């Protein structure tokens, strides 16, 4: 197939970016989207132009690195599929494809299609864990967990931290991401002791990072490659409300260490 690509090029965080058009004359339907970009990049290098920078690592849909807006849709047209797992057979000869980075205030652009998603790590730092040090845990089967509960926790835990939910949301809200972690841990018995504090601290951090509010449009769920359900947002809101009412105030410092 022959395709025409319009790609966002931006030298670095400080300079202005713009869309640049490239031809992709030799695309096989069996290629993945990123393999198609690899081929375009090899041609660019041959011509002496700097290749397009984009993020990727596992190319198996699990690391959450890849992150492209494809024709205005985060991760492109195929449901429940990351950019790296999207194959060119979803496109047809002659198509024009617009390729842009995630756009959100909390995800500043670093170069071309690469953005800074460290805000997600800081949301986890605010409470996305169970405070348990290595060593000394009781036998794993001491505490049975109903299969149903474990399965639901797993549904939430599948989030790959890609940020598509933020990119798709007109408010750039990180509610789906945050609620996935709050729910994963909040559903399990091991996560109960810190449940309310966790919800409160993580939501506060999310606001601090400049993510927007949720106005129940559910664009996030529609693009999420792991099909994380918006039910978890409702669940997090309940935990958050409980925490606010019961006054489980934010903790200053978490974690171990000596000092």
């Amino acid at each position: 197939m022959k395709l025409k690509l319009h790609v966002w090029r931006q030298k670095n965080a400080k300079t202005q970016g713009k869309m640049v058009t490239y031809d992709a004359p030799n695309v096989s339907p069996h290629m993945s989207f990123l393999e198609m970009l690899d081929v375009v990049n090899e041609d660019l290098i041959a011509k002496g132009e700097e290749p397009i920078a984009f993020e990727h690592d596992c190319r198996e849909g699990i690391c959450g690195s890849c992150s492209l807006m494809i024709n205005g849709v985060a991760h492109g047209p195929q449901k429940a599929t990351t950019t790296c797992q999207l194959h060119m057979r979803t496109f047809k000869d002659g198509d024009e494809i617009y390729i842009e980075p995630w756009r959100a205030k909390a995800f500043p652009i670093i170069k071309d299609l690469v953005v800074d998603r460290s805000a997600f790590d800081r949301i986890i730092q605010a409470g996305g864990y169970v405070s348990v040090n290595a060593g000394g845990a009781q036998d794993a089967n001491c505490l049975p967990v109903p299969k149903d509960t474990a399965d639901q926790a797993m549904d939430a835990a599948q989030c790959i931290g890609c940020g598509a939910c933020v990119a798709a949301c007109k408010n750039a809200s990180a509610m789906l991401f945050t609620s996935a972690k709050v729910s994963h841990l909040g559903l399990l018995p091991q996560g109960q002791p810190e449940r309310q504090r966790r919800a409160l601290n993580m939501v506060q951090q999310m606001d601090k990072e400049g993510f927007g509010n949720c106005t129940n449009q559910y664009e996030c769920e529609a693009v999420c490659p792991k099909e994380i359900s918006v039910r978890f947002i409702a669940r997090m809101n309940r935990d958050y409300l409980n925490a606010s009412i019961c006054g489980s105030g934010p903790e200053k410092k978490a974690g171990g260490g000596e000092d």
Partner: protein
Amino acid sequence: MNLDPKIPSGPLADKWTSYKGNAKLVNPANKRKYTVIVVGTGLAGGSAAATLAELGYNVLCFCFQDSPRRAHSIAAQGGINAAKNYQGDGDSVYRLFYDTIKGGDFRSREANVYRLAEVSRNIIDQCVAQGVPFAREYGGLLANRSFGGAQVSRTFYARGQTGQQLLLGAYQSLERQIAAGKVKMFPRTEMLDLVVKDGKASGIVVRDLVSGKIESHAAHAVVLASGGYGNVFYLSTNAKGSNVTATYRAFKRGAGFGNPCFTQIHPTCIPVSGDYQSKLTLMSESLRNDGRVWAPKSSGDKRSPEQIPEQERDYYLERKYPSYGNLAPRDIASRSAKEACDEGRGVGEHGLGVYLDFRDSIQRLGADTISQRYGNLFQMYERITGEDPYKVPMRIYPAVHYTMGGLWVDYNLESTVPGLFVIGEANFSDHGANRLGASALMQGLADGYFILPYTISNYLAGVSRDPVAASGEAFKEAETAVKDKTAKMLAINGKRTVDSFHKELGKIMWDKCGMARNRAGLTEALAKIPALREEFWQNVRVLGEGESLNQSLEKAGRVADFLEFGELMCADALTREESCGGHFREEYQTEGEAKRDDANFAHAAVWEYQGEGKAPKRHVEPLVYENIKLATRSYK
């Protein structure tokens, strides 16, 4: 080169307990006076960094991805072994130990492997406490599945995303310590050299991948957890960024490299579809629990699978290895697939594939059960190939997957450079010549949560608590060397892209140092690789600049190291004149099965760098078996 494994005395089962009882400790108030560098945030590095910080050490932690959560461990699918015997099917620490040694074709160190089996049980406890959502039975207890090379069910799993869930557990513990100020995290930062000062590992030189700045960090000890080097083959199941740079540069600074030729080819991956192929996708080995592997009986049979009647199908694993059947270990399953294809019985467009068929189990168990077990894997397969495995058998072919070789370490997980510790896939230790499925995750977490924290304390207790600084001759020299090398790559401005070199190297490695190796092929590779390397340094084209995000430059540095390392692998494969595990030398076989030579090769080969342009030197660590009898591996 001193290769004393430092195995504690006493009976096998008591060694680790007595080691812990006698190890030197650092008192709690002094721990914060020590700084430890951890390179890597996969299962090994992530768990080690978090645990060291929990103990009170200051940790500087590095990864090249934008977040520690994206380390390659995230991609592991099938599961993690542990000798819990929850199924009451006769499992025990000893049995897991024995299976691992046997699976590794008797080329690993008894004491290390026993300890691994012993702490495997703690891993599951720790992970459950962290909130890892392992699969459970209706009664609420943990579920298990069986995996290749074992006759018990000891594999714990979280759907087909076990690595992801275990890594997120470690990552969350790590983030907790970052929040506590005990770990300083450097994402998007690549280690480009090891600094050895006064004979001890004292720091590293890194490049900030966003600003391009090259700088150094000092510490009282350095831990490498940088993963495996399967990408030397260009095509592998590893993440695109996985590389040998950290361990290879440590090798050039004096760390011995153990068994570099021991690589694992995984039997169940999606076949290559074209020359644009950028990586290979694994289909978890757990599929072999319910899928049956077959190829047509006659060569050149081009009929579609449903048209091939039962009596014209060769379920070759069941035929050749009746007691293990489709669960034969990986090296054996891979080689059998290659044999079938070499005989012209391969399937798919290029004839490089065999079937993994779920027809019978779907009939027996129903599509729902199969979907519950493997739903996401089936989906992934369909996304990539456009074929529905509920209807058409999967096509699979072996692909490079894991590297058993790595930096040599003793019982302390310390390399031949004092103060340099190596954990996870980056070291050579526990899997001998072949790793059993679900044992890499076990090893990474055993090293990071439960072993290194003890052994590194034992080392630090003997090291001055004075603050360290990245200054002095050794740091300056290493930093300058890195800067020069970077500048040189940017200045060449030749005609070929980095990827084109990487692909060419990969093809040489796959053809000559892959599933089957022989003297002529290896000798040929040993001539071709230096020539290719030469051309790289004359003719590679790396555009852009050093002082910004430059993905071509990152790749170029990694490929430059692969171009040296590939030669080391071939040299190792050539000098190991036997077949064992994943290392199959065509000259050494009996009736198609690997022929081990215990009289001459019951040792680890450890290579010592001798300087630019000089052949590295081969040393050996004899493997002494006090508790088990060396036996010919049989899965028949």
